[in-house]
């Protein structure tokens, strides 16, 4: 497999995040190149999810900055991140439980909707056309993820694996340039994991989407990612291709707890 990457589109510089007395992240820097699949791994509590939350502005780091396509963000917020083309999925599925699969994925189109409340209230002209055009886009996502049969089902009734897929669908409907996946395969059986891997690789391959993912399944991480960052206790202890990381003594000791 010969993969082509572009420039670094996302660059994190010296990010530190503190909650009260707890240092969640300490002086972390790494970059993400366009079109690559970048994994963040580490033991529980290493700060992986905090890292994603910093990237899309849910948490504000005390120090450091985020450079996205050459633009500097000292203070990111979720809205700015979404506008800049970052979308994400959640570790504990954060779908809108009362809404159908279609409506959940339609919310992903929210930023692309231009008509105002009054036009929508009378369901007329531009509002109606826009709604139907977005529906067509959403159906493409539904086809891509092979969830046609459940499109009208309220997501609360779906099994876990399918909910994860809808979560991915909602993120994809934003047509992101960077997709953050927080443990997309947690709690899945082997077949579901294989399906999810296939979707992630296809998204990366067909749409050229850059992917940053957190995952505990080492087999999956080593197979699909191009480069891996390793965190432990909020510090970066390793960075490189899967093979380099696997051979790194510090990483091995963090995972196996070997004494120095």
């Amino acid at each position: 497999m010969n993969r082509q990457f572009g420039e670094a589109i996302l660059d994190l510089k010296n990010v530190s995040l503190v909650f009260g007395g707890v240092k969640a992240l300490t002086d972390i820097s790494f970059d993400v190149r366009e079109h690559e699949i970048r994994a963040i791994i580490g033991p529980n509590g290493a700060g992986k999810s905090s890292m994603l939350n910093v990237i899309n502005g849910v948490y504000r780091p005390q120090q450091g900055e985020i450079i996205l396509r050459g633009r500097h963000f000292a203070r990111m917020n979720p809205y700015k991140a979404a506008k800049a083309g970052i979308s994400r999925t959640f570790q504990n599925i954060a779908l809108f439980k009362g809404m159908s699969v279609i409506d959940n994925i339609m919310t992903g189109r929210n930023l692309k909707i231009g008509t105002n409340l009054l036009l929508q209230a009378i369901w007329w002209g531009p509002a109606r056309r826009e709604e139907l055009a977005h529906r067509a886009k959403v159906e493409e996502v539904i086809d891509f993820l092979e969830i046609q049969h459940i499109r009208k089902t309220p997501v609360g009734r779906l099994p876990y694996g399918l909910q994860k897929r809808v979560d991915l669908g909602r993120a994809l409907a934003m047509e992101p340039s960077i997709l953050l996946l927080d443990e997309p395969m947690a709690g899945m059986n082997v077949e579901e994991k294989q399906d999810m891997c296939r979707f992630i690789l296809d998204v990366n391959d067909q749409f050229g989407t850059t992917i940053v993912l957190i995952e505990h399944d080492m087999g999956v991480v080593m197979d699909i990612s191009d480069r891996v960052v390793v965190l432990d206790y909020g510090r970066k202890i390793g960075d490189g291709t899967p093979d380099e990381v696997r051979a790194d003594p510090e990483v091995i000791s963090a995972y196996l707890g070997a004494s120095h």
Partner: protein
Amino acid sequence: MLYRENGQFKTSYAADQQIFPIAQDRWAILAIVAFAFVGVPLLVDEYLFRAILIPFLILALAALGVNILVGFCGQITLGAGAFMAVGAYAAYNFHIRIEDLPLLMSLLLGGLTSAVVGIFFGIPSLRVRGLYLAVATLAAQFFTDWVFLRVPWFTDNAASGSVSVSNLRIMGWQIDTPVSKYLFCLAFLTIFALLAKNMTRCAIGRQWMAIRDMDVAAEVIGIRPLFAKLSAFAVSSFFVGTAGALWGFIHLASWEPAAFSVDRSFQLLFMVIIGGLGSIMGSFFGAAFIVILPIALNQFLPALGGLFGVSISTAGVSHAELITFGALIIFFLIKEPHGIARLWSTGKEKLRLWPFPH
């Protein structure tokens, strides 16, 4: 067997996104609306109009508004009565202070004023949620109670604090008989219900529901909580305020602040909880349940007593009415916490498969 969508193939997203995608539903609703406009005025007597139908229509409109805020956007409010009061008194002031302002304009301006006040009292929702927000909205209730009782300007210096309107006409059509009042309110309700349905199936409705279901995820998708919450407060207060203006102008004709007390706020909240949170249909069910049931019990209980040779005193009837009503509410909340609307949709799903179990 009759209620089935077999053979109704949809070939466009427009057809799939209709309000009633199933043909039988469309015809049934059309028939009901036509009957409400044409059949009811011919069949019903004056008492029913005044005691049941007109209050039902107006309170259903207010319940729609409350449901948008509580059911769709998930922001609990105990201030619905306050927004009805703002709508009613604002419409009154526009009506008496601006010469020759058409009645329709007064009512809608009342609604708009209520929307502005609603946005103001919605600001705490950006910081607090759940029960704390309910307490914050209660402030709106006590504030308006006080303002309309104590500031004489709002009641045109009426000594008793009571205001009245008369000689209502719209484009030469005098609204004085119960039938004309009924038709006027029905027209309002029909149009507003359609607007509410459209909003809730469109982008703005999805924003509200996203905030209700999972606000962090909504923000990450690019929904601004500020806009979503305050727009819900605005639209909801507009509906409730317009209903308040209708309640004052059309139903009561002369009213004082007590007409929009905190009891009214609770009544409206119960309507949407019993009818079904997050359902347009539920607002109608809830309003019907709360308006019609007490009166129906009132008529029915003495007859039931007579059947067993027991005569019930008037006081006994009104006590029994409250007891039965309370018991029914508890029964509904235990059997179906999602309200009558959920029972209705479960029933429809069963009917589509009938006579087969799956």
